[in-house]
């Protein structure tokens, strides 16, 4: 019995590693597909954009020739790339030369985590509750009105909704600050002043993310619960004369399982959405740094961001799979 669980877990871990390897190979290959020397191209973009002084450009050029391993055979470049990665070395930023990419990411990543994780958990809980409620009242006016509304909310572009929320609640009504992570001049720390100020800035992006994600969860939960309510065991329980409330509770429990798997899939989508949303709110997390890296074509930084985000997505999916394996009794027997 436990052998099955172990086999399941081993498969998931192997899959996660394979997915990460696939991504690493893609990240490694893409800049090397540029005809000619990738470093020349990357640095020449820097010259066009910033018109930095020639000495700096020479230093940058030398540095990246070494980091990319230009001139070495491809397999050697790849093993170097992987070795650097394993040491946690993501290279040096071009646009913020000579700062290390890992340093820059360590500065921005925590703010995105603080925004994204609570928003996902809250929207998951609220959405599932709403979904069960609608499934229970399926076919009634409530269902007919709310379901299309939820479907619509699910399709609102994150970025635009953020703009609208910012316009209504910060620019027009002035309930919230018009952007930024915390007031200029405050230094992050666990003191009353900072926490209150941070939460004031945090509230609007957080609410935007929660509102927009709730729709998808509720729709998923609705159809899952309706499906479960139609299954034989519920019918049997109904014939036994169990109270409706109990039936709904049983259906809810079974319907929750697929929603756990969805959590992993949706994490990627919400991550992408929150990156865009951060830009609108000037919230200084991964979104802002991604945009900066893209607009300055800072390839090492772009690469570092992608590696970290891909690792996060894969890790979350792995954790979700493991939790699922432990929760779902079917995996123990098959």
């Amino acid at each position, binding site marked *: 019995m436990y052998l099955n669980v172990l086999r399941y877990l081993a498969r998931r871990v192997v899959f996660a590693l394979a997915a990460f390897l696939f*991504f690493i190979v893609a990240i490694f290959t*893409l800049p090397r597909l540029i005809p000619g020397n990738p470093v020349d191209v990357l640095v020449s973009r820097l010259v066009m954009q910033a018109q930095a002084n020639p000495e700096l450009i020479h230093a940058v050029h030398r540095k990246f020739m070494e980091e990319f391993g230009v001139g070495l055979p491809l397999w050697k470049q790849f093993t170097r790339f992987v070795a650097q990665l394993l040491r946690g070395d993501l290279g040096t930023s071009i646009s913020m030369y000579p700062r290390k990419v890992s340093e820059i990411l360590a500065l921005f990543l925590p703010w995105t985590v603080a925004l994204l994780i609570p928003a996902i958990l809250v929207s998951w809980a609220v959405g599932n509750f709403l979904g069960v409620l609608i499934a229970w009242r399926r076919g009634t006016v409530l269902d007919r009105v709310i379901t299309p509304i939820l479907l619509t909310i699910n399709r609102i572009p994150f*970025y*635009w909704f953020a703009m609208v929320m910012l*316009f209504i609640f910060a620019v027009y009504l002035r309930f919230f600050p018009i952007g930024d992570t915390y007031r200029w001049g405050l230094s992050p720390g666990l003191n009353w002043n900072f926490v209150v100020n941070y939460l004031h800035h945090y509230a609007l992006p957080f609410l935007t993310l929660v509102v927009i994600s709730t729709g998808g969860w509720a729709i998923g939960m609705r159809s899952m619960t309706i499906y479960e309510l139609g299954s034989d065991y519920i019918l049997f329980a109904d014939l036994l004369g169990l109270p409706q409330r109990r039936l709904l509770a049983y259906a809810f429990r079974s319907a929750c399982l697929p929603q756990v798997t969805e959590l992993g899939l949706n994490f990627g989508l919400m991550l992408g959405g929150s990156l865009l949303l951060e830009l609108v709110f000037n919230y200084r997390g991964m979104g802002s740094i991604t945009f900066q890296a893209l607009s300055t074509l800072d390839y090492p930084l772009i690469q570092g961001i*992608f590696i970290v985000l891909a690792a996060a997505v894969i890790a979350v999916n792995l954790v979700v799979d493991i939790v699922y394996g432990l929760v779902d009794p079917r995996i123990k027997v098959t």
Partner: protein
Amino acid sequence: MKKLRNTRLIISTGFFLSVVALGVVGPWVYPVDPFSPSGKRTQPPSWEHPLGTDAHGRDVLAQLMHGIRTSLWIGVIAASIATPIGVLVGGISGYKRGVLDELLMASTNIVLAFPPILLLLLVTVFVPVRTRMVVALLIGLTSWPLLARAVRSQVMSLKERQFTFLARMAGLGDIKIVLVELLPNMMSYVFSSFVWLMSGAMLAEAGLSMIGMGVTADVSLGTMLFWAQMIDAVRRGLFWWFIPPGGILTIMSASLLLLATALDELFNPKLRGR
């Protein structure tokens, strides 16, 4: 119950077609150049400019009509690319099973695990000039996995039905069974998938354009939002500029999704609930 389905179908089709009409017929009725200034800068809506002007004095309504065309075009092309790939991968996977299935599904899950916007950005970074076709191609090539998974499970269940056994007993080859026996049974599903893929592709295009990584040298609904964001239109209160593109995008995408679910329920009685 029957009435409800029809109203949802009619309402969603109605919304979608009116937006399409705005994009297709609009530019004839309202022939203003969306690319060059036609008035003063950042003018609020007036008789002359029904949706005002942007920070360069270009007409917002004209841009909107043009943007609808771009979004629709990309949506249709991307969905036309993603649908066959999804059906093919899912079909082979579900019909053949075995090692091939494991491999195909593993690669499907890998693509599925990444945020689509990251996959798209990763590639667009290296394509400095992006035409509509390039963007549509990129979106199409990254949006098939969900469909592949769904088609796979459909094929797996259809394969066990009696008519497939009969076809096999009659001596039909694999390819013929898939094309003649299985595919027609899934056509309705494939069609509604095309509709939701289109809805997703238009959102993906907007997401790319919103950070300046979409179609270069063209106007789409996403590019309008990108420009508005660059000029800080929200904090300057230029609501006529940034509200319409996102609103239209939501209406188009949501009406397509509603249409897809209504079609699903129409074709598949099991989904209707009780």
